[in-house]
Structure formats: C-alpha cells, structure tokens
C-alpha cells in the first residue's frame, strides 16, 4: 500500500476538498449557514473548554472509552491473525452514531439553534439525534423514507418516545437518500433557527471533516489501547462503509501510520455482478450528490440508482468524499461483502463470542474472517464493531421463518 504523499496528512483544503472530492455543491441559500458552521467549528477545534465539554459528555453520557476486546474464540474458529473488536456497540443507544450527535448538539447550542433535524435510514442516527435533542431540550425532526418507516417500526416508535417528530418521506425511492433530500429542503427553509445534524462523513463541507473529527475518538482510543494492551499498533483496521463514518472515525488517527492497513467493507448485497448492491467505491464512479463530489451509483444519464443491502445502514448510493480520496491515493482498500456473508458473520459472532453485531458491522466481521486466514497468527486485526444487532433480530428471524 503506498504511503500518503503529504505528511502530516492535512486534507481537506479550505474549500473542503479531499483531492478532487468533497467540496460544497449546494443551493446558494445554504452557503451562508455552511460558512457559519465552518467558522464556528474551526474556532472550536482549538477551544480547550469545548474539547473538555465534549470529552466529558463522551465519558459520562455515552459511556466511553469503549473496550478493545480480543475475540479469542472467534480467532480460534477462523484461524490466522488475532482479531480484536472495538466495542462501539456498547455506547449509549447502541452504536457509534452518538459520538457525532453529542458533538453536533454542542455546536447547535453554541450557535443558539434550538431545533435540530436529521435524516435516517435504519433509524440509528435518528435515534442518536432524538436522544441528544431530548437531553439538550431541542425540538427535533427526523426525516425517514416511507419504506424505512415501515421496515423499522421499532426505531420510529423509539424516536417518538424520545420526543422527536418522525416525518415519512414519500418522494423518489422513499429511502435514506430521499430522507436526506427532504432534510436539506427543511434546512433551506428553516436555516435561521435549525441545525442539520448529518449522520455520516458525507454532505457539503464542513460536514465530512466535522463528523470525522467527532468520530475520531474511536481511532484515538484504539491506538492508545493497542499500545497499552499489545505494545504496538495493529496490522490492519477493518470497518464497514455506508456513508463511512465509523470507518473514518477508526481509520483517521492512523492515516500517517503507513504500517497500518485500512480496509473499508461495502455492501455487495446480492452480489456486485447483479447490480443489486450498495458499493459505490467498488462499482460506482465519481459524481455529485448531497452536497459533495464522491463515488456514487448512477446510471448512464447521471440519475442516482436505487441500492440494495440487507443492512439498512449501508443501503446508500453515495459515500463520504474522504473515502473516495483514500481509494484513489491508495491509502485504504475498499472491498465488498454480500448479504449472505454478512448474515453468516452475524451468526458466527453470536455463537463464538456472545456478541450480537449490527448487520452493518457484520460486514466488517465477515471480511475480517477472510483476511485473518491470509495472515500469520502474530498479526493483529482490529474490527470496528460499530453497533449492536438487536435492531436486526426481526430480519434474521424472518430468514429463519420465525414469527413472534
């Protein structure tokens, strides 16, 4: 794997560009709000009081640090390299998403905005947003595709219990991408009093960098824990990639460590060759969607295509622009794992470790199983276990023909 040309790594540039990716492709009305957010964020990134407040909330509300856990029975079952799990599933609300929503809630508070909005697919980011909104006393509105509202009834109810309004989106394909369109329309209309909490390292500048920096706590802890527990850095980090926030959060603090391989795992769905997948880095091309230039899945006419993954959190036709950049400069590898492989990995981790991974994270486990076999047993793999799988029990039960 070739090293990053420029060290220390300092992307993005002032306009939010990661090489030819990223930037700010939005309707003019939003530019001012994005400028304000960028300026505030740049000021706060060197603000010690803000950093302390964020870290306090991560420790006492989210429950960090999360363990770096050696999965010995899993390792034995597979053979090859030692597999460690970064346990983001143990965070409050059950996934890494809360790291970012806690940070962005603090930003909203600083801007004096008392209303937050979010898009959500499976509902994890929606729940994480509704959670911090409840804690800060913000009004909260979550946009969710009509299809996803049907598929994720439990999370919809959970958000309502948290005091959020859930708005079903009936335009386009009625899924995550359309929820994001609708959230942007809300933001354009209510930009004076509303902060848009984007849930991934996607969207217009400064979101990809801002969300990355809030999620980078995952990688910082992993680095410290590796040195403490192993006396060295891991050989490879593996994480699933939908928009790519858990992967970026784990990878980013290691970007200048050339000895650490980074592998992002996309959703191959029914198989890349079937076209029914959600793997833009593996099978897409660069284009513009939701405010930034990145790899995406579009047809010959530039229309965004519908995607498929068993995991709602990976079911998105785009990807964060920094991942596109890393693919092109060779800093990370991006592979893809099918629905079937992910489900097998879901079962395997349950059975060997007593841990139920989210179907998203199961993609990373599945690839780790493949990768471990190719490595020596003194090599170290860290997998980001980005979320817990309780939300996916219904999906698995349906496959097993079980009705509750």
């Amino acid at each position, binding site marked *: 794997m070739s090293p990053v040309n420029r060290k220390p790594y300092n992307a993005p540039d002032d*306009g939010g560009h990661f090489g030819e990716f990223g*930037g*700010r*492709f*939005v*309707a*003019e*009305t*939003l*530019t*001012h*709000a994005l400028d304000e957010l960028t300026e505030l964020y740049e000021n706060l990134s060197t603000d010690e009081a803000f950093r302390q407040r964020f870290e306090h909330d991560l420790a006492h509300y989210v429950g960090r640090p999360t363990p770096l856990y050696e999965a010995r029975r899993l390792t034995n079952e597979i053979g090859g390299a030692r597999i460690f799990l970064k346990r983001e599933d143990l965070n409050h609300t059950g996934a890494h998403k809360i790291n970012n929503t806690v940070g962005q809630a603090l930003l909203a508070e600083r801007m004096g905005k008392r209303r937050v909005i979010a898009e959500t697919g499976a509902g994890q980011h929606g729940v994480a947003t509704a959670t911090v909104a409840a804690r800060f006393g913000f009004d909260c509105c979550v946009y969710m595709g009509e299809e996803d509202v049907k598929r994720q009834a439990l999370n919809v109810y959970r958000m309502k219990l948290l005091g959020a309004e859930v708005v079903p989106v009936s*335009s*386009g394909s009625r899924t995550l*991408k*359309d929820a*994001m*369109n609708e959230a*942007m*329309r809300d933001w*354009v*209309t*209510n*930009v*004076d009093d509303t902060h848009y909490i984007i849930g991934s390292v996607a969207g217009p500048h400064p979101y990809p960098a801002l969300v990355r920096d809030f999620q980078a706590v995952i990688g910082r802890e992993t680095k410290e824990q590796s040195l403490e527990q192993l006396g060295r850095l891991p050989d490879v980090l593996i994480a699933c990639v939908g928009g790519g926030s858990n992967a970026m959060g784990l990878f980013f603090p290691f970007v200048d460590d050339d000895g650490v391989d980074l592998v992002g795992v996309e959703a191959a769905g029914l198989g890349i060759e079937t076209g029914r997948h959600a793997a833009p880095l593996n099978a897409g091309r660069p*284009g*513009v*969607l*939701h*405010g930034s230039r990145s790899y*995406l899945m*579009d047809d*010959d*006419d*530039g*229309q*965004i295509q519908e995607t498929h993954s068993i995991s709602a959190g990976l079911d998105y036709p785009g990807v964060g622009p920094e991942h596109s950049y890393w693919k092109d400069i060779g800093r990370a590898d991006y592979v893809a794992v099918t629905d079937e492989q992910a489900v097998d990995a879901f079962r395997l981790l349950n059975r060997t470790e007593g841990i139920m991974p989210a179907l998203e994270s199961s993609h990373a486990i599945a690839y780790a199983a493949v990768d471990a076999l190719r490595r020596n047993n003194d090599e170290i793999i860290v997998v980001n276990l980005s979320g817990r799988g309780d939300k996916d029990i219904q999906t698995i039960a349906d496959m097993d023909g079980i009705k509750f």
Partner: protein
Amino acid sequence: MSRIGSRLSTYKRTGKTALVSFVTAGDPSVATTVPALHALVRGGVDILELGVPFSDPEAEGPVIQKSSERALANGVNLVAVLDMVRDFRQTDTNTPVLMMGYFNSLLHLGPEHLVKNAVEAGVDGVIIVNLPPEEATDIQPVFAAAELDLVFLIAPTTTEARARSIVSVAGGFIYYVSLKGVTGAQHLKVETVRKEVLRVQSYTALPVMVGFGVKDPQDAQRIAAYADGVVVGSALVRTMEALQSSEGQIPGALEAQVRKLRDAMDESDQDQRE
C-alpha cells in the same frame, strides 16, 4: 452577445420586465413539451427555462419534484431534452432557452460534452442549482469559450461580499431566490425582496430575475415594479399536472395563464414609465 444578453439589454433600455417561465422537459409527456414552449412564448414569455429532470432534486418543492419523477418515468435524459430544444428551434430562433437542473444529470459526461451539445441544439444558458461559483472554476472557461451563459443564483442569505463576487463571474443574468425555502413555497414576501433586489442591482449591471414562490399575476406585478424579470415555475407545472389526462388542453391553458402574468407586469411597467 448571447441571445439572452441582447434581449435583456433591449428590455433594460425600454423598461420592460422580462417574464421567465420554467417547465420540466418531458412532463407530463415528451410530446407536450415543445408545443407547451411555443404556447408560453405566444402568451408573452420572454425567456424559457427547461428543467432537466434529476432523481434527487434537493432544492425543489413537491410540485417540481413530482414533475421530475414523471419526466424520468417518461425516459427523459439530457439527450432527450436537447432534442426538444432542437425541435423548438425549428420554428423559433429568437426566444432564449436555458436548461436548469442539477450537477449530476447535466455534467455526468463532463463540461465539454454538455457545452458542445447544448450550443449545437440552440441552448443559450444553463442554471445548475447545486453548483455555486466556487465549484465552477474549471467549468466556467468551457462555457465562456462557447458563449454559453452560466447563470448563478443569489439568495436572501447571501452576504454582500459574496454577492459581489458572484456577480463578477455570472453570465446572462442573476437569478435572485426570493425566499428561504424550496421552489413553489408559500411564504413569498414581495416587499422584503424589493430591498434585496435593489441592493444587488446597485452593484451589477446584470439583469436580476426574481424566482421561487411567484404564484399569480399580483405577485408578478408587484415584483415587476423593481426587478428586471420574474420567474414563474411551480404555478405552470401545477397547471400541466392538473391537465395530464387531457394533454391537448395544456398549450392553451399555459398561454392564457402567462398572458395574465404578462398583462399584470405590463401594467406595472407602464406605471413606472409614467
């Protein structure tokens, strides 16, 4: 000078306010679009905007979203839109035509491809809703070399410093977004827009067109009192939507609808001259 520039500079001299229409290409059917464009011109439209449908039109309200979905269901792509312009140009070589849409369905084959084919088809300008000037620096020279106008937008939230830099690179005219919101929104405040438009006019010679949320002759008339042009979109698309099962009536209905707008604006222009 482009067809857009020469027409608008004439209007500037005579004090006429331009009427700009927006319809989505291929909505409700491919066959209706060219007759609809001719009808709009007959009714008094000065500049035509033709929407290129996109799967994810994030700045549009529900009316234009649905029209994009209908057009896409009809198989409309960039090639089809350019065919419509070519067809329109068979009998109308005077009326300026702009394409309006989003980056990915306009520029997926690159700026050279778009510009060459647009100019050949008889297009005069392009508005790319999600392309601010900062991201257009590579694209602009390609447009400039072909004398194809790349139109930019200014919004109520645009700061003065930024607006000044936008007008310095903009082609054709300035599209002033009259409200914080999506196309076709209900909360247009004509008087607050007035101050903003006058401010923009104070530092650019480019004509300023006001769009988003203009519904009826009253809105158009009041805006015509200060703007160089009025853009009407969702109101026309709604008319076409209502008549989609009797498409034959669409040209006549559009012509009548824009004539009312034109008459109201002419009254306003008349008042200003007196």
